[in-house]
């Protein structure tokens, strides 16, 4: 049975950028994008695309990718297409900027309602920028469909999804009726690379652009205006950084000295 899938993907500042390049503008409470480091699709979202692709590989189906923001870089947001997704819809407008989990989940929900038909929605477990971890569950609640979060494996059979949900001390196999929303965790495994064929195909595809009016939302309900969680302050915690480096003539000697030093400090 072909499965109709939607994957929500967020463009974020590359979380692998060197920590030293991370800077905040205290006046605007915003992160300054590190110069020369292009943004990426949030890694958990890429794995959400991978989860959908595995289902498409095994039983066919269609994958529509949904991204929200403003000034989205086409090379970045098209990556899921080059991995094998079929369509890309961008909710792109200045009014979508500065949202929290609430206003973003609301806009995505309205877009999903406009898409209409779907069996499964995939999201990353949390985005690499705000780490809020609310969007997936929020969309499911607003749509009134069941959700299973933090998945490491997803299969579809007999009109139901079977999901392995990661727990602290193992995992749980959960069966859920469809349509359903599933959030994906890193335990799913690495997302595939784009193939050359995929990149060529993606280059030819034009994303569909939807503005707030296209999905029937008022500017006051989305982006910064629709927030329920007010950001009071964004700051970098001060690190003391007082590391006592063990000096020695050889690595082995350093190992011996380290053991002695930890013993003196009564750490074992």
């Amino acid at each position, binding site marked *: 049975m072909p499965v109709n899938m939607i994957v929500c993907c967020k463009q974020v500042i590359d*979380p692998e950028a060197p*920590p030293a390049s*991370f800077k905040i503008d205290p006046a605007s409470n915003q*992160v300054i994008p590190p110069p020369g480091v292009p943004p990426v699709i949030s890694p958990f979202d890429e794995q959400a695309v991978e989860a959908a692709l595995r289902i498409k590989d095994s039983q066919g189906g269609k994958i529509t990718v949904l991204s929200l923001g403003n000034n989205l870089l086409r090379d970045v947001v098209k990556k899921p297409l080059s991995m094998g997704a079929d369509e890309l819809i961008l909710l792109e407008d200045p009014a979508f900027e500065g949202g*929290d989990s*609430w206003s973003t989940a609301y806009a995505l929900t309205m877009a999903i309602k406009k898409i209409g038909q779907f069996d499964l929605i995939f999201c990353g477990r*949390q985005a*690499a920028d*705000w*780490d809020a*971890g*609310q969007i997936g*569950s*929020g969309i499911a*609640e*607003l749509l009134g469909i*069941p959700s299973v*979060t933090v998945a490491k494996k997803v299969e579809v059979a007999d009109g139901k999804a*079977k999901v392995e*949900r*990661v*727990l*602290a*001390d*193992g*995992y*749980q*196999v*959960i069966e*859920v*009726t469809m349509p*359903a929303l599933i959030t994906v965790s*890193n335990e799913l495994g690495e997302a595939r690379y784009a193939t050359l064929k995929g990149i060529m195909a993606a280059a030819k595809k034009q994303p569909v652009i939807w503005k707030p009016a296209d999905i029937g939302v008022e500017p006051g309900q989305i982006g910064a205006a629709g927030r329920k*969680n*007010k*950001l*009071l302050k*964004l*700051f*970098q*915690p001060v*690190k003391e*950084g*007082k*590391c*006592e*480096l*063990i000096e020695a003539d050889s*690595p*082995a*000697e350093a*190992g*011996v000295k*380290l*053991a*002695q*030093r*930890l013993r003196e*400090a009564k750490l*074992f």
Partner: protein
Amino acid sequence: MAEPKGVMVFGESVQGTLAAISGELLGCGKQLADALKEELVCILVGSQLGDAPKNAIAAGADKVYTVEDAMLADYQTDSYLMVMEKAIKDISPRILLMGQTSIGRDLAPRLAFRLGVGLAMDTVELSIDPQSRLLQETRPVYGGNARAIFVSEAFPQIATVRSKAMSPLAPDASKQGEVIPLKVELDPSKIRTKVLQTVKEELAGIKLEDAQTIICGGRGIGGPEGFKQLEELAKVLKGAVGASRPPCDNGWVPDTTQIGLTGKIVAPELYIAVGVSGSSQHLAGCSGSKNVVAINKDAEANIFKEARFGVVGDWKQVLPAFAEKVKELLAG
């Protein structure tokens, strides 16, 4: 709905006793309730709560609400959501705290969206603003590179709390408190999931969360063989072995050993990081450790910023000599 009042902790029970995280939530909840001069209550949901209600009172709760039903034996989003939606409407707390656990991170966002209120996940500091009497929620963002303080203005204000971020009170077994059973009608037709199987992947030896000493291996370990050396050292030090994300993603060690933002949060006395670069998302899982020791050949590695002691060198040469000396010192 009545006027919102008091602090409610969503407690979790493990085999008939209160989970450690719930004790931490009650410790933090007590401070918030005192600042508001209001009550601290705990709600426990499950099929066999055992001593957990008593534990919750000893841990600081003025009152404990219990919802016991065979249908609540396994956590399922829909059933627990029904219970909590009803409880919040009946009890109407100002603040609801949940643990950032398998349950909390699934239940809290659905509950917040159902109730139409804001939520801060994975918080590490909570305080009451004296003017507005609103809860201010501090949480790490950008993989631990920054922190953000949030406030929401609708009640209940909901926050999930990172494990080991708050201190429990010393249990007071003589403390009195009321235990109130709540009746919630569960409609099985509205539960759209079924738990087919629960698979435990517990590692042999001391649990990571309980270990006082942790030896953590990173990408620099290079493969599964290297982790055997870490295991040996852990045995000598009566500790446990953990890993940053790359060894888990590469299949060198089980996923359940992962320490970090999306893995386990640990806070041992001694944390020896071997071949770990110290990405922010890893430090999010171990920055509560009392003493971090770093062994890494890259002097610029971020882990040295977090460490109290460090050796710049190849772990393959440093570690055997270190382990030998540790054995010698312990024997002597």
